[in-house]
Each structure stands twice: as C-alpha cells, then as structure tokens.
C-alpha cells in the first residue's frame, strides 16, 4: 500500500491512500481514496474477485439443487445460503416444515454464527487493534495473545462441531434439503455437543469482556440499521424486516424498498434504499441494535457490562456485537439441545408447481435475500440472490469518505492500515458479493 503526496499548500495537497489488496477479508478487493485539501475526492472499493454468475447458471437447475449450489457461493457462510434457499423455495411452494425442523435449522445456524464470528473477531479483526499483520503474529508476540488465539480456535471448533453434526461437514454441509434434513440427529448424538458448548460459553463470556476493553476510535455515525425482528426470538430464520428509520415490512416486500443499482461509471451493483437512494447497515451491530431485548439474559448482561451504550453507532464496535452474538448463539444452542425432540419425518415433502417465492435469513454478516421462480416441473427459471456485503458496500464507502480526512496526518502505511480497518469493521465477504465495486464522489 502507498500514500502519494504532492508538494504545496495544505489546502491544495493531493494525497492518495491506496490499499492494493485487502487482507483478512473473504475474497479479493482493493481500496483507493483520493483526498484534496483534506477533502475526500474519490473513494473506490474495487473488487477484483471474478464474477462467478450463479444467478445465471441456476436457471434450468432443479429446485432441490438450490441449497447445494448456492452454498458454493461462500465457504464461510454456506449454511446461510442453504437456509435462505430452502425457505424461499418452501415459501414459493406453500410448504411449512414445522417447529421441530425450525429448531434444528436454528441450531445449525447457531453453529455457523459461532464459527464465522470466532474467525472474524480473533483472526480477521482483532490483529488491527494491536498493529499485527495476523493472529499468528499476535500469538508469537505475547503468551496472553497465544492463549486468546487457542481459546478462539476452541470456540470456532465448538461452532464447527454443531455444523458438522447437523450438516455432515463444516464447509458446504450435505444434510440440508428442501423441507428439512436428510437425516435428523438422535438426542444421544447431541449430548456430547452440549458439554463442548458449555466449555465454550466460558470462553465466549471472556471474549466479550476482552473485546469490550479494546481501544476504539471515536467514530459515531448516523446509520440506518436494517435487520429482521421476530416476535419472541433473536432473529435468524424468520421475522419482519425493520430499520432504525422506522421501516417495518414483510420480507417478501424487500425489493419494493431496496434495490440493486448499477452505477453508470462502474460495473458494480450496489444496494440502496429506493426512497432517497441512501445507504444502510446490516450485520451483527444492526441486529443487536434492533433486537437487544431479544437477547437471552446472559449475553445481554455481558453486553451491558462492557460499558458500551446500546444501541451503538460506532462501527468499530461491531467486533463487540460479534462476540456478544457468539455468546448468544452458544446459549441458544444449549437451550435448543435441551428442548430437542426429533421431528417425526426428517423432511416434509415439497411438490413442484409453478410459483415464485422470496425469503430473508440473518447470515452471520447480515440479511441474505433469495428469490426464486420455479416452473411446473420444479426447474428454476429465475434466481435473485442479494448477500449482506452487497448491501453494506455503499455504507463502507460512506464510512471511508467520513473517516479518511481524520488520518491525513498519519504516516502513509498507518493511514492505509486505519482505512483497511474501517472496511474490516463490516467483515465483508467479497466472495459473496462479486457485484461489489467502484464509485466516485465529486466534491
């Protein structure tokens, strides 16, 4: 990364902060920020991840294949894709799998939240707070860091153990199908997991405390947070879509209120609000801000004990929201295991008919929208997938516009690193959002 400066009075000084390749994110992206006289002239979040065209080759595939195919969009959050795909197609067919299947899906999702968040908190995000290039470099630095890394690996492992039991394997699980599962676990299979999760709960409690004590830059912004809200539970697979700005809609109204736009000077599809065209913020911080009262008592207490005022509008504190959600997901998984009753059938039947359906679930990084059109024989005729990172992308760029002027006095590398941290606040998954990219601010 480089910062180039030109001579002259500070008013007219032009600098470019360039991050050639974003590290510790999933996928390939770059950032260019051009500043003139302390004002941001141009921010480009260029994603050089090659498009893979899933929405195109899903056409003509069987509806039952959608969970397996869309899982391959992201190796970090395949369960999210499987959940949104199953729900959207079941909605199209008018199928409702029932409470016991719901509980198992929620348990599977808990596993993915735990492993994905544990990866981001300690491996991708935390090193920034200590000026380390990686978690392994952190581990080499201080014994307490090494222990922290080991603990977070144990957390990640507990999450993965859940995904492995319910899904068959950690990455691209094989056990999810339309209507439910291929095979559901016997209660005796879940018992050892409960033991592992109880040990993990201690680690998660400690993790919340640790990240709550990190040194955060002052960067409160006025955000429109968007997340699902469920009548009784912290949101995962169901609910209405609500926002800080007062939105309250059914999930199949999503496209009436949000749109993917192609910006004329770039190849990006960006999500904006239809009304006003503004950015919005999805993910753990949005979920927590909008659903604090839906957290179980322990994670809620742990969140309050960090001293952070919730709702929180400092994106750097997203790391705390992730840690709190790890604790919640462990708590919730233990509750679900304790109350587990196997469904009578592993899956309800899904008979094809000409139909269309859409659904939203809460992926680790925020709301994931799927919409499918299906022909009478059960083949997909159209698919539309909108991952959380596409939705946060505009917000990331707006954060960079506001943040970059404050790092002007730093050394080039330090300035670039700080801007990278702004991007990593969102845990962007570029593999998911290959329609991500470039936009220009004219001052």
């Amino acid at each position: 990364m480089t910062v180039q400066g030109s001579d002259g009075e500070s008013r007219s000084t032009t600098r470019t902060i360039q991050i050639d390749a974003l590290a510790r994110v999933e996928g390939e992206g770059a950032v260019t920020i051009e500043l003139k006289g302390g004002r941001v002239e141009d921010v480009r979040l260029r994603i050089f991840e090659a498009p893979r065209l899933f929405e195109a080759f899903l056409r003509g595939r069987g509806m039952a294949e959608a969970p397996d195919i869309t899982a391959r969009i992201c190796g970090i959050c395949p369960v999210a894709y499987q959940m949104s795909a199953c729900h959207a197609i079941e909605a199209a067919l008018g199928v409702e799998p029932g409470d016991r299947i719901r509980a198992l899906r929620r348990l599977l999702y808990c596993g993915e939240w735990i492993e994905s968040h544990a990866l981001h908190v300690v491996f991708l995000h935390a090193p920034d707070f200590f000026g380390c290039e990686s978690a392994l470099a952190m581990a080499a630095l201080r014994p307490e860091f090494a222990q922290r890394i080991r603990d977070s690996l144990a957390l990640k492992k507990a999450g993965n153990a859940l995904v492995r039991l319910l899904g068959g394997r950690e990455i691209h699980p094989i056990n999810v199908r339309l209507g439910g599962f291929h095979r559901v676990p016997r209660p005796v299979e879940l018992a050892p997991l409960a033991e592992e999760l109880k040990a993990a709960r201690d680690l998660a409690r400690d993790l919340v405390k640790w990240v709550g004590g990190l040194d955060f830059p002052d960067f409160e912004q006025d955000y429109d947070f968007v997340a699902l809200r469920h009548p009784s539970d912290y949101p995962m697979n169901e609910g209405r879509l609500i926002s800080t700005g007062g939105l309250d809609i059914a999930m199949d109204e999503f496209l009436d209120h949000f749109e993917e736009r192609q910006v004329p000077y770039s190849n990006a599809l960006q999500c904006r609000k239809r009304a006003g065209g503004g950015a919005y913020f999805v993910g753990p911080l949005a979920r927590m801000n909008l659903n604090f009262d839906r957290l179980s008592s322990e994670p809620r207490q742990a969140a309050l004990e960090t001293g952070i005022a919730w709702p929180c509008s400092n994106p750097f504190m997203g790391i705390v929201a992730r840690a709190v959600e790890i604790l919640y997901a462990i708590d919730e998984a233990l509750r679900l295991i304790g109350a587990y009753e196997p469904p009578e059938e592993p899956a309800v039947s899904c008979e094809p008919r000409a139909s269309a359906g859409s659904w939203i679930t809460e992926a680790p990084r925020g709301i994931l929208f799927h919409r499918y059109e299906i022909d009478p024989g059960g083949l997909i005729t159209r698919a539309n997938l909108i991952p959380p990172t596409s939705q946060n992308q505009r917000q990331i760029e707006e954060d960079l516009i506001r943040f970059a002027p404050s790092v002007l006095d730093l050394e080039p590398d330090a300035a670039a690193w700080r801007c990278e941290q702004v991007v990593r606040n969102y845990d962007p998954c570029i593999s998911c959002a290959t329609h991500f990219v470039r936009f220009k601010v004219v001052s």
Partner: protein
Amino acid sequence: MIQPLPIIAEPSKPRKPRPRLGVFKFASCDGCQLSLLDCEDQLLDVAEKVEIAFFREATRRPLEGTFDVALVEGSISNSEQEAAIRDVRARSRFLVCLGACASHGGIQALRNQSKSEELIRIVYADPSTIELLDQSHPASAYVPVDLELPGCPINKDQLIEVLAWTLAGARPMIHRHALCLECKRRGLVCVLVARGEPCLGPATSTGCGAICMSYDRPCFGCYGPAEKPNASALAARLAELGAAPDAIRRLFQTFYATAPDFQKASRIHDGTRV
C-alpha cells in the same frame, strides 16, 4: 484525531528458516483455504513448522519471495488471474490445487456451456465493463501442477496429510478409488442397491469419508470422478432405475462439469451413448 495503530515490536527470538507456505485464491468461495483455518487442533502446530509467508485471508503480509509449497484455490476466470497463476508457479517449488475449482474449473464452470456474454447479461445490466474469460479454467490449463486435492470442498485431513508428507520430503499420495469402497468399509447400507436411489458413489472419488450415505443421502459427486470410473455405465443404470435423462445430466454436471468421464456420462441420452 485518529491515532496510528500501536505497532508492537517483533519478537526478538531469532528463528531458523522454515519452509515457506503460500495460499493463493482465484475464483472461488474461500472454502478450501478456510479448511486450513478450520484445522483448529493443528493450525498453531502447522504455523510452527512452516512459515505462512502469504495467505491474504489470514494476514496482511505482502506477496514477496518464493514458496516451498503453494496452495492454490479457485479457477482461472479472467486475464488478471491468468497472469497471476503463472506468477505463482514461477515462485513455487510444489504447487497443490485445492478442490474442484482449481483442478476442474469448479461449479462456476457450469457457465462454460453457454456464451459467457449472455450469462453476464443475466446478472449485470451493463455487461460491457465485466472482463471474464470465455470459460472457467483449471490452473493446469496454464501451468504444470504437482498435485490436485479433490473435493468441493477438500477434506482438511487430506490437506494436513499432504503438508506433512511434503514437509517430510516425500511425495504425497492421494487415493482416487471409488467412494463405494469407502462406503462398504464403513458398513453403510447401499442406497443405490437397497433403495434404488441415484447415487454417484460407484463413479466418484473417495476422500470425503462417505458422509452423505451416513446421512441417508446418495452421493452427489462433489469429489469428482474416481480413477477409471466407468461413469457412463452408472448413468445407464440410473436410467434403468427410472431417473429422467435431464436429472441424470444435471447430476453429472454440477461440481466437476468439465471432467471428461462425467461429461460423457451426462450425455448418454443425447444419442451419443458410449
């Protein structure tokens, strides 16, 4: 005013040089490289034994120098990646392809059957700025490859095994016999024979551990063709069991769509039966 990040001094303890490992990503889902981070019990040991010299998902370290082992994930999909895979090869002694994307173009090779321009138009309103090769290619289309690990995703135990063998100076060996054998060894009931379900186990490579059958699900081929798979005979049998021609085509055309054996099997109902 925002402060610079605290830079903590590097550890003073000098280390003797270790083999350098690089992890490289092309068009993919990140899942295969994540397998390395998913080795929760071995990751810190691996990091002791090798120097993780380049791994963008895990570290800010810039790309420099050469590599004893390069792990390559993803398919080659645009001209930038074409240049990058040649560069990785030039820097690396032993190049391992991780998974279906790097070895066969991956699931995104499903686009190879259509004009990419038409497909781009489905996703992007204005396709003029999207630069994409006509097809999704394996690394081996551009450079010599030393080893290909099968799977979508790979099996992390196989990955650790490959690293261990390579570090010991031995050439790793990957079994490519049919998954059927694995399934029989595990004593699982055959879903094809007992239930007449369309299972690709007889023609698919071992490596996954026969997960699907242990979850009452027939194999759907995510480890690609076994050695000498006779996949066309399996396709014919699936047709006898009542599977529709288009369903058979799709079954063989998902994760390893470019594998010649699977291509042939997928076409048995085109009148080109072999």
